[in-house]
């Protein structure tokens, strides 16, 4: 008997005695086949507003609380100009990114050496980049999270290794809440999920020293979300 069989046998033996349902004060023991969940998460999670504008405002408000820099533009050109300004103020020398509908055109205009992480790359090179620029799968109003996968956003390390992560997004990528985010993932990837899916909510942070908030513990110190 392998350990797998032994453990599963112990589990099955243990489960022969039914346990009471939660909230039934030890009274109700339900047969296995019946529905246990009596509600869905969407109705209990924080309210996100009905209209697109309300959700956009909520995203901006949450982002400010998280100390993420969220900027909204009227066109792709405006967004490109803003990125160039950011590059100049922060004196970027080396940029990392990946190929994509938004990133291709915009990264090219920066006129800086670009490390592509959607091709085989050296991790030491990525570590020496000033910024990682990526696209995303969605922006989530409820928590001001950026949803990325290693397929849509240049691999596993691009969004965490450089000290600054810049996300490029379109307005229509804004979705309401976490249940919609999982719905989206299912529609987009159910046949073959990427090996990494990540909800990024603000820049890297820690409170391990006297519970005082410090940004940039190991991941990026800055998170900039540019959206048009």
């Amino acid at each position, binding site marked *: 008997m392998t*350990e*797998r069989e032994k453990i*599963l046998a112990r*589990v*099955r033996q*243990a489960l022969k*005695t039914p*346990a009471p349902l*939660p*909230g039934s004060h030890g009274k109700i023991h339900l047969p*296995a086949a019946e529905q*246990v*969940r009596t*509600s*869905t*998460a*969407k*109705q*209990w*999670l*924080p309210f996100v507003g009905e209209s697109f504008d309300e959700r956009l405002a909520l995203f901006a408000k949450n982002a400010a609380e998280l100390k993420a820099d969220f900027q909204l533009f009227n066109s792709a050109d405006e967004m490109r100009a803003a990125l160039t300004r950011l590059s100049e103020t922060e004196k970027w020398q080396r940029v990392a990114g990946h190929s994509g509908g938004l990133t291709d055109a915009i990264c090219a205009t920066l006129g800086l050496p670009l490390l592509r*992480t*959607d091709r085989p*790359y050296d991790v*030491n090179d990525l*570590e020496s980049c000033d910024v990682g620029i990526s696209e995303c799968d969605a922006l989530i109003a409820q*928590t001001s*999270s950026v949803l990325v996968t290693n*397929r849509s956003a240049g*691999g*596993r390390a691009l*969004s*965490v290794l450089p000290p600054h992560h810049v996300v490029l997004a379109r307005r229509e990528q804004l979705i309401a*809440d*976490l249940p919609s985010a*999982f719905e989206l*993932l*299912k529609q987009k990837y159910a046949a073959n999920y*990427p*090996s*990494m*899916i*990540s*909800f*990024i*909510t603000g820049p*890297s*942070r*820690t*409170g*391990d*020293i*006297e*519970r005082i908030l*410090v940004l*940039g*513990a*190991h*991941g*990026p110190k800055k998170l900039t979300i540019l959206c048009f």
Partner: protein
Amino acid sequence: MTFVSQFLKQARVMTSDLRHRRIIRTALGNYEIVRDKRKAAFQNWQSARQLAAETKWEAVNHLDQYLEELVAKLEARGTKVHWASNSAQAREIILQIVTEKKARSVIKSKTMTSEEIHLNDALEHAGLNVVESDLGEFIVQLRHETPYHIVFPSMHLTRDEISELFQRELGSAATNDPEELTMIARDALRKKYITADIGITGANFAIAETGMISITENEGNARLTAALPKTVISLLGIEKILPKLDDLALFLPMLATMGAGQALTAYNTMYGGPRQPGETDGPEEWHVVLLDNHRTELLADAEQRDALQCIRCGACLNVCPIFRNVGGHAYGTTYSGPIGSVITPHLRGLHDWKHLSNASSLCGACTETCPVKIDLHHHLLQNRRNAAQEKPSASEQTTYKLFAFAANRPKLWNFGRKVARLFQPLQKPVKGTALDPAKAWTQTRDLPPLAKESFKDWWKKRK
């Protein structure tokens, strides 16, 4: 020294350490404010708790099916799954992988399960360089201590202590600025992610439906640990299961709310395999180690099975008056606070650890706060009952027999009451000393004087 006497000694020291109590009170006072703010943002927190409890109940009570589904999905995408019945087997599996890879250095992201199996000792004994990457874990590792709290490992330390530690161990400049201290750790660890041969992570949830491990963190250290080393090992208890991927829509915000008073932590990441064809980074090999280590024994106790629903948010520790006074290290266990007091007797033996069931005021604050509705304070009572049934204490039995004998004989009882009242003044000079029969009580409290007239006498007179 037995576990109980060690606990009593530690508890006595810590409860009178005013400095320790002040640090914990400040930290947890701030936690309560942000936690309540996040709870209030939910449209209905109590309903969310009920749904979370139902979801975890579903997972735990069909654990065999969900484990098989999880493993099939993981293996289909090239993940190597290992099963360990106990700590020794888990250590053995991990050491074997490490040896096969001829690894010399290991980077770890936070995992309490590795504390449970004492993995670091085993790896270091085998000659490996092991570095904890979570800031709090890194700090307690430098101090050669165990984590103080399952979510906030270095909560018991001040910035000055951390500064001294960094100066001594890392040779850094003196500073008591939390930001500068964090940057010292950041710089110390940066290269370690890139050079480490092996990454070791824990897991907050394991998704049966899609074969994924979900990791919740704030620092990005787990993201890096699971991205850069060539081989990654994830160690988790078999109870970490969630049935569906979208169950995370509820569990990620609940864990952040109760764990740290956040709407969502900075990184919540689901891993579905090692590097897949066409992907440019991530580990070439990914191993998942599923650990039983007495969890199936807890599963067999239907009355306390819900303790396996625990998501290790630490909320019950934070509200517990015992934890807040004796601190995390006094317990001498991997998991402290109410949940630790409930499960440790199952994981490490009822009779060695039954004293933790008495380290409780039974106020029920833990049960009330638990996001997955574990009936914690009743489980403490059940552990007391089980311990007494399995191995009755002779002195307790004699005491209660004598009490029952006297209480069933009104004349004897009355006589005893009168005699006791006459002798009570003699107790005063020896109050709280070894000569005092009521020592356990009178050390810190007064014994009220016995009444001159009993209720029975008063009732008779009144008629």
